[in-house]
């Protein structure tokens, strides 16, 4: 007897429909059977979604920092820190030694006093070069420094969002006005946009800052600086940072120790953390799916025994082995997909809860996780469990002898 492909499709659709009906008629029992799978899929989905959202939030926060800039500092603990300390003049020497970089900017963080409504206030002054340096925060108004301003030691500054609101009344246009720092006047050329809320990761110190050209450092009376900002491109940022370190060692001696920080290295570190996390999830997923799957197999074997007579009747009226096999596999598949779906909903719900209560506090920003991989994982895992653990009971059902089944009480 030959069946057309069309009738096979029709039969399969009918098996699935019957499976849904059977499971719905026994919905409480089906739910209990699926419980292991629901918890397994749910927890994996929750962990994945939280991990994904956290990763995205962190990436979002890091977007304030330039991908093209590396920051080189002398290590805090080293035999001769005094000797290793970076001098303002090193910047020019390093720039010469590493010609492929766009700029080498000495960075200094200096507390200065300003007057806000007749009261003296301390504010953090940070040095920068022309254009985008280490800090890539967007500007709300005005512009960054021009090369001329930097070269000509101009007294210009860029205010952070908080500094602007502290020093000036809200709403007023401030570019072009002056700010007094340690007794000298600086013309405001730009104002930074409101920073991303960094939640607990945010440091309180850095919020009220004023940025000035680095060429003013000698004028402030400093010859040592906190570090060098090496501006290159995202591709070579780590490499160029290390080249700068080599140049510094040539100047300060090989015993001097420096370290380099950049977003690229940081990202690689974060990626490593997430790789480990994924591995852990994999193990949890494996165990929970094994437990869920064994539960499903157990109940299916019971169900096959209970339905021996039904199997006998079906075979006696002309069901082939494949028909019985498909019937039970359909039930396993429908049950696991339903369980996977419930697990998915539960997992997403749990993830949303964790994200909105914990992650939002930690990172300030919530970036939604992406659905596609999570739904795919839920579907693939549950279908996989159905096939791995449903096949044995289904094969067993299909091989039952019809006459033995009909005698079964």
């Amino acid at each position, binding site marked *: *007897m030959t069946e057309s492909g069309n009738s096979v499709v029709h039969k399969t659709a009918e098996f699935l429909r019957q499976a849904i009906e059977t499971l719905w008629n026994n919905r409480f029992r089906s739910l209990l059977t699926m419980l292991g799978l629901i918890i397994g899929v749910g927890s994996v989905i929750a962990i994945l979604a939280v991990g994904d959202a956290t990763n995205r939030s962190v990436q979002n926060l890091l977007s304030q920092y330039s991908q093209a800039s590396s920051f080189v500092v002398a290590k805090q603990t080293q035999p001769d820190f005094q000797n290793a300390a970076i001098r303002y003049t090193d910047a020019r020497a390093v720039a010469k030694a590493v010609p492929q970089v766009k700029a080498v900017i000495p960075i200094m963080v200096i507390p200065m006093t300003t007057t806000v409504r007749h009261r003296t206030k301390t504010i953090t002054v940070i040095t920068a070069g022309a254009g985008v340096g280490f800090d890539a925060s967007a500007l709300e108004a005005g512009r960054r420094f021009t090369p001329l301003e930097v070269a000509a030691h101009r007294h210009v500054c860029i205010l952070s969002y908080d500094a602007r609101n502290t020093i000036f009344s809200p709403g007023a246009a401030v570019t072009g006005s002056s700010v007094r720092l340690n007794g000298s006047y600086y013309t405001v050329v730009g104002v930074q946009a409101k920073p991303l809320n960094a939640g607990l990761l945010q440091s309180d110190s850095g919020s009220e800052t004023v940025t000035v050209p680095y060429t003013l450092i000698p004028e402030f009376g400093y010859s040592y600086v906190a570090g060098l900002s090496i501006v290159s491109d995202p591709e070579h940022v780590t490499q160029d940072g290390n080249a700068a370190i080599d140049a510094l060692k040539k100047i300060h001696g090989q015993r001097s120790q420096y370290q380099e920080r950049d977003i690229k290295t940081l990202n690689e570190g974060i990626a490593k953390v997430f790789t480990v996390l994924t591995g852990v999830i994999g193990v949890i997923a494996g165990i929970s799916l094994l437990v869920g799957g064994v539960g499903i197999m157990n109940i299916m074997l019971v169900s096959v025994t209970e339905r021996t007579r039904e199997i006998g009747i079906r075979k006696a*009226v*002309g069901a082939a*082995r494949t028909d019985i096999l498909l019937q039970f596999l359909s039930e396993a598949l429908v049950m696991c997909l339903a369980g996977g779906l419930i697990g998915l909903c539960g997992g997403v719900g749990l993830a949303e809860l964790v994200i909105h209560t914990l992650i939002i506090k930690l990172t300030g920003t919530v970036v939604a996780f992406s659905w596609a991989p999570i739904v795919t994982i839920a579907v693939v895992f549950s279908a996989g469990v159905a096939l791995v653990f449903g096949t044995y009971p289904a094969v067993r059902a299909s091989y039952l002898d019809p*006459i033995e089944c009909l005698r079964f009480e």
Partner: protein
Amino acid sequence: MSETLAQPLSARGIPSVQERAVIDITDMTKVYELGDIKVPALRGVSFRIAAGDYVAIMGPSGSGKSTLMNIIGCLDQPTSGIYRLDGIDVANLDDRELAAIRLSKLGFVFQGFNLLARTTALRNVALPLFYAGDRDRDKKAQRVLEKVGLGDRVQHRPNELSGGQQQRVAIARALVNDPAVLLADEPTGNLDSATAEDIMALFADLNSEGHTIIIVTHDDDVASHARRIIRLRDGLVISDESGARNRPL
């Protein structure tokens, strides 16, 4: 009344009834093994049944009637001997082919009805057609249910039907794929005599339409409807009488 069901065998291009055995059994034995104990249920049975015949199998309890019917219905295999159904030696068939034979050539009415409990009469009757991949199954099942007088009970489940009605659903299911051979193991065993008469009348109709009918019964009245009576005792044929009624053409 359905055209397909009403179609006599001769109209399906099958040669003259006398020369063609639809069932051909030679030296058949069946031994059940219960641990070390061997229970011989059939001990060498041979007979042929012509297409379109109406045969009753009788015999005391335990004589091997159900065993024989199960083998004829391709639900069980003999221990030895040859069984040809429509010329095909069924011992050589694999699972798929056996299922196909059950679907296309055989209709089995069980002693205990054997209906799917939580399924409507219509779905029960349509079941063989589902496995045959027939998309018109509901329409056909409806027609056959009407034929057995249950046109108004199609949506009832077995527990919502009387014993006689369940038996008729079982008969409708056996008939729905228009089988050449209809096997019925004690089809009237659980029924009152009036319902039994109805069912016997239905069988007579089916036989006149060309279906070969084999029934197992203890009841002489029921057996009197048949043209031929095969009697078993202790797994052997002890008599085989034809001519209770006229043989078919």
